[in-house]
Structures are given as structure tokens and as C-alpha cells.
């Protein structure tokens, strides 16, 4: 039966009403794409930026290090494990690091901070925000050398310049206080005060000697992947691969809790506002379909009288809501595509607003002041199915009302 064609024709009986409802659906698509798309872009951006601040998307470390970092929680065989990880698909980089606390002092002053001891051969600016943010000098290339890279704020506090000496003190694996002298090979400026004032990069082999680590011991292996959404999948894969009760594999959700919390809250508000918009739109769809049904009771009575089964009538109204969803989606794509393209290619520039607010960071992570958009495939599917589910659900009650038509009653009135 050409129920589909009949449904399509019925939809256009009241063009204005259908177009208005289609427009409201398209507005929902527009809002949904904007909310979801800026989220998909923004979260990925923040997660990827955060990953380059030390802990990566996935971290392999000695059990318990994440909860209470201490020098006696050491990852053995780090280089060997790293070799294995780097060959995995989706892994774009992996690097061995030692993390710890230290006091940094110049002749005049001293400040507390954290060090990240790195292997200059495997580190790059791609996976390390501090290297990326170097404004003066160059990263040390000897892992056993005396180089150090400090942030601009620390340099200012200690009144130190490039090439000057700095002394750092920390505790070794035996709990002894140990000190080293280093020479500033570079200064970075990330724009994040807590990083620029308290983080330093040190050569890993030198730190191993200072702390009493063997050549293959470290705090962690930091893994960077091409798609942040696969972090948990990779974590599980690595856990199985390494299969060592003394070793723990964690995803960014576990190592970067502040960011995870921030994203969760943002996602939830985002999601709730979309649900609210969806409900308002659904009410509009329901109203349109119900009016359409109530105006046609006589027609339904005749159709049932001549032998149309109630199930077919039910399907007819559901098909009308289906086509309404299609119309709304097409209109939605028409109004959303240019906007999407604009956000994708040009973006919205929030630089001035951010400057007024005093910075570009959220949850300790740098954010891009130019807002772009990006939609993950699963978000597109979610938006499309959301529109369809909402529309079809809105059609259920009108369809049920249509089926309830009593031919005798409706035929009585001319």
C-alpha cells in the first residue's frame, strides 16, 4: 500500500503548520549541532592540551604512584615497555619520565616546584607543552648533562636568565637530601601561571643518578594517542599486555581528575539543555500531529469503514511524523551547514572576552580562545536518532487517537 505517499501528502495539507514545525525541528538540530560540536571540539582540545602537560592520554606507572607519588614507586623495564607500546596502532607517541618534587634556588632566592625528567631523544614539542612553549634557548640534548628548562615566572622569581646556574635539592630513594647544580638551557612561557612558576624539565639520566634509580627505572611512561576517545580502550589493552600486578595503567580520566570533572559537568549541563530544547520541540511536534489528526476524524472514519485496518491507520500517522522528521532534518541541515562550515573554518574569536576574564585556562588547562567546531560520528548519529526518536514518540499519541476513531460517530456528522 502507498501509505508512505499518503502520509507525505497529508503532511502538506497544512503547509504553514508543517513548515513551522519543520523549522522548530531544524532549530533543534542547529542548537544540538552547536552545543555538541563545540563540546566535541572543545573537550578534545582541552584533553589533548592537558595530555601534553605531563601525564599523557594514558599513563603506565608503578602501582599506587598516581594516588601517592613517591620515589620508591618505580616502574621497572620502562624502556622495554615503551618500545612495545610505540608499535601499537593509534599510539602516536610514548615517552619515559620521572616526576618529583624539588626546591629550586638561585643565589638570592628559592622556590618549591615539580620536575619532569625527560629523555630528550624521545620528547618533542608535539607531546610536551613546555617544550612547545620555549621562548628562549633550546632543550638540552644530553640526557646525562646539566641542562634544565624552567618557566618564565620561576626565572623571574629567582632572578635568573638563560645560561645561569640553578641549584635544586630533592630526596633520593634512601630519603637522603641530595642537591645538584644545573644550567638553564631554555625558558618556556605557557601562559599558565602554575606551570610557568613551578614546573621544570630535567634530563632523565642525570636525575636517575641523583635519585639512585637504575638506568631502566622511571616514574611512568606517558602515552599520547591520535584519538583521545580511545584512551580507556588502550588502557585496558595495555593492562592485559603488560600483565604485571606491580604496574598500573591509567587513562587521562583517572590521572587528570580536575579536567575530567570539569568536562563531566559541562557535558551534563550541555546534555540537559539539549533535552530541554528537545522536549519543547517535541511538544510542538505533538501539537501539530494531534491537530492534524483531530481535523481528520471523519476521513479516518471513512477509511476504517471501507476496510482500512486500525494498524494501517496507526502506521499512517507514524509515517506522517517520520516525514515531518525528514523535513525538519533537511531544513536543519540547510540552516546548520553554513554555520557549521563557518565555525569549522573561521571559528568564533573569544580572545578579547578571555583577556577581560584574565586568561585562557580552565581546569588548569590552556584553551584555545578561538572556538571551532567538530562533530564526532557518534554525535552525528546521536543527533539524527534523537530527532527521529523524539518525532516518532511525539507521533505515538496522535496515532493512538486516530485509531480510537469510531466510524459511526464521525460519520454521523456530515
Amino acid at each position: 500500500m502507498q501509505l508512505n505517499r499518503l502520509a507525505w501528502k497529508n503532511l502538506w495539507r497544512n503547509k504553514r503548520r508543517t513548515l513551522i514545525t519543520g523549522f522548530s525541528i531544524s532549530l533543534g538540530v542547529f542548537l544540538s549541532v552547536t552545543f555538541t560540536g563545540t563540546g566535541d571540539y572543545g573537550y578534545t582540545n582541552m584533553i589533548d592540551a592537558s595530555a601534553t602537560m605531563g601525564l599523557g592520554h594514558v599513563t603506565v606507572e608503578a602501582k599506587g604512584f598516581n594516588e601517592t607519588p613517591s620515589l620508591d614507586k618505580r616502574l621497572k623495564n620502562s624502556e622495554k615497555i615503551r618500545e612495545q607500546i610505540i608499535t601499537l596502532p593509534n599510539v602516536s607517541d610514548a615517552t619515559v619520565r620521572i616526576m618529583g618534587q624539588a626546591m629550586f634556588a638561585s643565589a638570592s632566592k628559592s622556590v618549591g616546584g615539580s620536575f619532569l625528567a625527560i629523555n630528550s631523544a624521545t620528547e618533542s614539542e608535539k607531546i610536551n607543552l613546555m617544550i612547545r612553549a620555549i621562548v628562549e634557548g633550546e632543550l638540552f640534548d644530553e640526557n646525562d648533562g646539566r641542562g634544565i628548562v624552567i618557566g618564565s615566572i620561576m626565572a623571574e622569581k629567582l632572578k635568573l636568565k638563560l645560561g645561569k646556574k640553578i641549584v635544586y635539592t630533592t630526596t633520593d630513594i634512601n630519603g637522603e637530601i641530595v642537591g645538584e647544580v644545573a644550567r638553564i638551557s631554555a625558558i618556556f612561557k605557557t601562559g599558565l601561571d602554575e606551570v610557568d612558576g613551578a614546573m621544570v624539565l630535567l634530563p632523565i639520566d642525570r636525575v636517575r643518578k641523583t635519585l639512585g634509580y637504575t638506568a631502566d627505572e622511571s616514574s611512568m611512561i606517558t602515552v599520547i594517542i591520535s584519538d583521545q576517545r580511545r584512551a580507556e580502550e588502550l588502557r585496558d589493552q595495555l593492562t592485559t599486555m603488560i600483565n604485571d600486578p606491580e604496574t598500573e595503567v591509567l587513562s587521562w580520566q583517572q590521572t587528570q581528575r580536575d579536567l575530567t570533572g570539569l568536562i563531566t559537568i559541562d557535558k551534563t549541563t550541555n546534555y540537559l539543555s539539549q533535552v530541554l530544547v528537545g522536549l519543547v520541540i517535541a511538544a510542538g511536534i505533538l501539537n501539530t500531529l494531534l491537530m492534524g489528526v483531530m481535523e481528520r476524524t471523519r476521513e479516518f472514519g471513512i477509511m476504517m469503514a471501507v476496510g482500512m485496518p486500525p494498524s494501517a491507520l496507526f502506521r499512517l500517522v507514524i509515517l506522517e511524523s517520520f516525514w515531518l522528521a525528514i523535513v525538519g532534518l533537511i531544513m536543519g541541515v540547510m540552516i546548520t551547514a553554513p554555520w557549521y562550515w563557518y565555525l569549522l573554518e573561521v571559528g568564533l574569536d573569544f580572545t578579547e572576552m578571555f583577556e577581560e576574564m584574565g586568561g585562557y585556562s580552565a581546569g588548569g588547562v590552556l584553551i584555545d580562545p578561538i572556538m571551532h567546531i567538530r562533530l564526532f560520528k557518534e554525535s552525528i548519529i546521536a543527533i539524527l536518532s534523537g530527532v527521529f526518536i523524539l518525532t516518532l514518540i511525539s507521533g505515538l499519541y496522535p496515532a493512538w487517537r486516530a485509531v480510537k476513531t469510531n466510524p459511526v460517530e464521525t460519520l454521523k456528522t456530515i
Partner: protein
Amino acid sequence: MNQSNQPIVQLTDITRTYIQGEIEVNAVSNFNLEIKQGDFATLCGPSGSGKTTVLNMIGALDEPTSGIVSIEGQSLSELSRSEISALRRDRIGFVFQSYNLIPVLTAYENAEFVLALQGVKPAERHDRVMQVLKEVGLEGLENRRPDEMSGGQQQRVAIARAIVTRPAIVLADEPTANVDSATAEALLDLMQELNKNDGVTFLFSTHDQRVIDRAKRVIHLRDGQLESDVLQ
């Protein structure tokens, strides 16, 4: 498949009671009727005498409070809802007083509607619809939508839709009530021809003297009861 000795419609001791507030109204009471193959009969009687109620029960749109309605020997009370729906689709044609048609469909599509419900193949549907539209005098108007046709033409489409499935009986509730006199005569000519040439069985309800004059059989109702049943 039915020999003319088996009635197409048999109403046995039908009573239809409506409850209005506290009081019971017998729209039809203790009513008996047989309609035979080839009948061209009309129900008549004053307003409220029960004509529509009788037609609705024959058309399986309404159920009697007591008594038996049989169509071609099949008692309707034994049928399920979907069987009733299929019976209306396959064995009964309906023509109502007005606004019979689906407004978004053309004359052709309206006539085709029930055939499509029956699952008749498109090619056969096409042949039968074109044939029947020609028979009711609508050749060339296949693509008109109801709002592009006169009341008489719309009634012709309704008649086409009713007979295209070759039903056992066509039930027509005041089919001429909303058309002018000349159109009424033309519609009656058409139905009379269909009855005479193709043996289509008709049962009307009417106030219209023209219908009564042309009917081969006139069934009078008064207060829901049979007053007279006259062959003429």
C-alpha cells in the same frame, strides 16, 4: 459464489438500544430483514426512525444489542475485529451522504484505495479502476482531486470506490441528500444501471422521493420498527 436463494443480508430479531443518560432508547427494535442478490432497495421513514442504525449494523460498523446480523450466511458476532475490517473491505461498499473521499487523493487514487488495501497488484488495479471510472462517467477526470470536482462527481467517485471491489452489497446512506435534483437523477440513473447490467445489490436509506420512486423495494421504518416492506 452466492446463489440467489441465499440472502446477502439477514437481520434476525435485531434490537439496538442506546442509553442516553438514565433512559434507554431503542433506535431499532425486533427488526427482521433479508436483502437478496440483485436488490435495489431503500429504507425510508421519518428522521430518527432508525435507518442509519440499520445500515451501520449491516455494514458491520455497529453492533446490535441483541439479534443476529449475517452477511452471506456469516454471523458477524462470530468474527474478530480484523475479520470485520476485512469483511467491510471485501464484501461491502459504502457511499455516504457527502465528504466520502480522501481529500489529498485524486479520483483515481480514491477509487483505487480499497483495492490497494486488498493487495491487488498495481497492473490489475489500474485496469479495474480505469474501467470503473469509465462506467461511472468520470473518464478524463482521473487526476482531479475532490476539491476540483462537483458534488455529483465526488459521489460518482464514491460509487466507483464502492463497486470496484465487486462487493456483495453497496450501502448508501442518503446518497442524494447533498446534491441538486438533476445530479440526484443522474446518480440514480447510474446506480440503476449498475444494478440492472452488473447485478450490483444496493440498499439505500433516504428521505428523497426520487430514490423511493426508483427503488424496486421500499422498506418503511417507524420508531425503529418495520412498518412495511413493499416490492414495486
